[in-house]
């Protein structure tokens, strides 16, 4: 795995959030997990009445899925999932939406193709690449960047996404 190392300023995102174990399917009549349901809610909202939201978006067709680990995450497996898009400023957002402000930081950017998207890439990044490359995790989150190269969960073989992992150099 050979990532690009880049530096980003703060990123302001607006979207929807979930906290818990997203693989705990709460709906007894469905087999969809919470991440899938979160995306469905976001797309449905944008389709129905997201005009204000669309006006604020920096780049149309570009979405972020942020996974944020909280202090209890390693104990319970529960974490936060945020899905949304980058906005220019926190203007008048629909009340259903939340803001997520990602701090300025350096990122290792990994390009995942096809079945790599469903693989255990967190293990490959955090347990294999990071220690060997001399980096540590800068913040307890990572995000997946979806643009026109992503063709849908039913067409992963043709899809490409980027995974951004905030990093700092390992202390000597």
């Amino acid at each position, binding site marked *: 795995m050979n990532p690009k190392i880049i530096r980003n300023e703060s990123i302001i995102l607006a979207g929807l959030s979930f906290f818990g174990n997203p*693989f*705990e399917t709460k*709906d*007894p009549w469905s087999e969809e997990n919470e991440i899938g349901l979160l995306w469905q809610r976001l797309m449905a909202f944008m389709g129905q009445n997201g005009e204000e939201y669309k006006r604020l978006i920096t780049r149309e067709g570009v979405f972020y899925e942020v996974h944020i680990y909280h202090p209890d995450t390693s*104990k319970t497996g529960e974490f936060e999932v945020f899905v949304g898009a980058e906005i220019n400023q926190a203007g008048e957002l629909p009340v259903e939406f939340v803001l997520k402000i990602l701090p300025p930081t350096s990122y290792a950017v990994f390009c995942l193709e096809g079945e790599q998207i469903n693989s255990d890439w967190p293990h490959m990044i955090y*347990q294999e690449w990071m220690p060997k490359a001399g980096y540590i995790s800068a913040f307890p989150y990572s995000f997946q960047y979806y643009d026109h190269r992503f063709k849908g969960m039913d067409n992963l073989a043709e899809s490409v996404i980027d995974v951004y992992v905030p990093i700092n150099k390992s202390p000597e």
Partner: protein
Amino acid sequence: MPNIDLILKAIEFIESHLTEDISVADMAESVSFSLFHFSRIFSRSTRHTPYDYLMRRRLCEAAQCLMKSEEKIIDIAYRYKFKAPETFSRAFKRMFNLQPRQVRLERRLDQRQLMGKLVPEYLEFLNSGISLKPEAKNLRPMQITGIAAPINANNPNLQIEEIWKLVGKEIQASGLKPADRDYLGLRMFFTSNSTNQYIYFAGTSLVESERAPHSFVQKSLPGLDYACFELPEKPSAASFVRKYVYHSWWPKITNAPLATFEIEFYSNRTAHKFEPQAVPVPQSLCFPLSFISFNNLGNER
């Protein structure tokens, strides 16, 4: 398809650490997965999140201790890593709908709620590609007739087979047409179901003009909403679907106790090949959704 062996390895790790402080991260590390990937694979394979599996197993082992030992409740709570007796009581009540001291006093619990360690055969069933998505059905009221008998824990399947053989013989001897009718099995659980005993009713619906054999009892099934699960043609499918409903599906929808009866439906296709000695194979399992303790099934002769 997820690697069943790795999931079983993770389950062994959890089972051997039920009385120790372990985290989901530890479980993931035991199989060299990231927490995210482990959670995804474990949840999909077992129908429990890793933390949910750990807590349910701890509570079930604690329940066994309450029923079978004289160990103090507070000691059991701490042994299974609950931070305080109140936390233990709340979690216990949420799972079993009973306080720990009630279970200690009465030494009984609905055995269906007790989840044992997940076994390879069940895991293979869950990962065999079958859909465990139920269908909501409103079933019309039915008059049914058949034979009811108590079933005990010693070889229940054999006991149920014998009841069906008897039903088959009686139907043939009475001149009723075996084909083109509904056959159903009813499991009726005692309110104090602590010994895996229940009443099994094997029978059929009657049309108005028909007379039931003298040995048959009659029951009125009310019209109710049910969650119905199609059963694949696999060995032990009914038993595995029950396990899934008791331990994964039902707890998702309610904290109420499990329903006091369940219905197995046998399709007409089975009846077309009706032979008195043959034991029909259930096609679907239905669980009533009214969340009331329905123990007023009308018994008539």
